[in-house]
């Protein structure tokens, strides 16, 4: 009997559909709750970051490929969309499509190159390409991208009515895309393809030994992760109406890596929780700390130091991030509970 891994790898189990709907409802409720707590103004940006972190979780958490260059594809999506809006027409859909196509094409080409390496080399060669992309936008392409000054762009309202420059619509649109991305990744990671990708993380030689062309699956996962990152970038452009080389800066990568790790790599819920925790550290500590230090009348360190402390804590005592730690606690309390 011949087993056909290629075809079996992309089928979807129908049994998980109910659970998926429940999770989507939970995610939507969580987003609405968050929108009540903080200002709606921030929610579109947060949703964009959530999508970016989810895409990175596929590459790093599920496939075990740590990259320092994921922002290249976020930036390609953002700049692709912005350049279309400025030099093409004002259609938001076309701009998104251009950003996605640009990043997918880049990922397809560069993926064939970077995936020949692994470990530290993979992380650093991606950083090298990201650095080169950052430079291209900043200097040689400055005639189009306006370099360091950045590019302002305006998109027509969606369906002629929904303006993305209104906070609520922006949140609704980005939130809907986030739900769609979550559903897609959830189906993908639970499918045989997802299992294969996770097996590559655990032991690539054995997967190859079973007769799978691992390079092809790594390449597909890399292109998917990069394209979803570009989707986040395109949304960023549409919502902000402005891009600058900061969106493609390699320094953005650490934010994404840490968000995934704080929550717990290799789980979509973990990535989302980590992204929320990271945004809380990054956005609220700079507000709270000056207040607190005025109240206590001492000079307190800024948020970066606290992030550093959190990172050391994760490595040395909270292995597996928030989600992993909670899961381990629950499992210890109920030994009969289902093990992952």
């Amino acid at each position, binding site marked *: 009997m011949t087993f056909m891994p290629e075809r079996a790898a992309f089928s979807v189990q129908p049994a998980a559909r109910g659970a998926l709907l429940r999770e989507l409802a939970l995610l939507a409720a969580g987003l609405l709750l968050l929108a009540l707590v903080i200002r709606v103004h921030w929610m579109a940006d947060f949703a964009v970051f959530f999508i970016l972190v989810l895409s990175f979780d596929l590459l790093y958490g599920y496939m075990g490929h740590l990259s320092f260059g994921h922002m290249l594809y976020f930036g390609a999506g953002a700049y692709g969309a912005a350049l279309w809006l400025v030099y093409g027409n004002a259609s938001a859909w076309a701009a998104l499509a251009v950003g996605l196509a640009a990043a997918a094409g880049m990922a397809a080409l560069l993926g064939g190159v970077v995936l020949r390496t692994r470990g530290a080399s993979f992380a650093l060669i991606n950083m*090298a390409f990201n650095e080169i992309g*950052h430079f*291209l936008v900043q200097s040689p392409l400055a005639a189009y991208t306006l370099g360091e000054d950045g590019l302002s762009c305006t998109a027509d309202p969606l369906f002629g009515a929904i303006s993305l420059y209104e906070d609520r619509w922006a949140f609704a649109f980005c939130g809907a895309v986030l739900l769609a991305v979550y559903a897609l990744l959830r189906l993908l990671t639970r499918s045989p393809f997802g299992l294969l990708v996770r097996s590559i993380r655990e032991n690539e030689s054995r997967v190859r030994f079973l007769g799978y062309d691992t390079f092809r699956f790594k390449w597909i996962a890399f292109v998917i992760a990069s394209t979803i990152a570009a989707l986040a970038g395109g949304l960023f452009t549409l919502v902000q109406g402005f891009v600058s080389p900061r969106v493609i800066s390699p320094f953005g990568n650490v934010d994404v890596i840490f968000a995934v790790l704080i929550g717990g790599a290799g789980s979509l819920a973990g990535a989302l929780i980590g992204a929320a925790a990271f945004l809380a550290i990054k956005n609220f500590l700079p507000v709270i700390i000056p207040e607190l230090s005025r109240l206590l009348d001492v000079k307190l*360190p800024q948020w970066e130091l606290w992030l550093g402390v959190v990172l050391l804590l994760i490595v040395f005592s909270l292995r597996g991030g928030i989600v992993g730690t909670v899961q381990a606690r629950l499992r210890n309390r109920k030994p009969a509970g289902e093990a992952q």
Partner: protein
Amino acid sequence: MIQTVVYGLTIGAILYFFSVGLALTFGTMHIINFAHGMVYTLGVYLFITFLQGVGQSFLLALAASLLAMLPVAWVIERFVIRRLYGESLDYAIIATYGVLLIGTDAIKMIWGTTPYPVNDPVGIAVPLAGMDLPAYRIAVVLSAFALYGALRAFFRRSLVGRVVTAALEDADGVRCLGIDVDRHFSIVFVLGSALAVLGGVLYAPISTADPYMGFHILLLAFAVVIVGGMGNLNGTFFAALALGMVMAVTGRFWSQAANAMVFVVMALVILLRPQEAH
């Protein structure tokens, strides 16, 4: 032309000072040590502070900052790096990056974010082939060559150096001989940190000191370590000088492209080199 060459060699020399420690951590422990950038930056800030205390004597302040950084390096090795032994690449990155963030923020808190300029301690220009070359830069280049010679002797002759050289080849093999590799390694780690501080202080008069200087040199030093071959100390020397020249020559014709060209070279080297099994 000569000016470009001297500039390239100066940058290469600084990169070499910084990269030695990074290459050692990479070679023995397979750790990408971001904390190295923090040691470098903190050393320079301590140097600037000591400079006022010792009446602007460059050498005295340098010695004081080196001495002050030894215990800092030891603490990082003992409480962070050593605990990461055998960990996966990513956890090592996160922990050392955490140290870098803490250090950078502490520096911003103590010294503020405005860049500090440092005066050229020699201040003499040597006329060479119709150009005025700062004698200081020539001294920096010569000191890098001297360091290369000294390190070669250290790793070939001294017991610590020979143990570490062997451990770079095969750490488990050395451990099987009953030698405590980690102990020897921690000595070399502190040495590498001191060299980073030395590089930072030597670079300060050419550039300025700012809290993020460690981040910038880290990216370039990764390229040096990759191009030179991870854990290959000879390779690190030649890669540092070669990439320094790449930066200087590119910068002469197209100043914004200097950094990017280093990464082009790095990407090419990763692609053209046969893969190491990991």
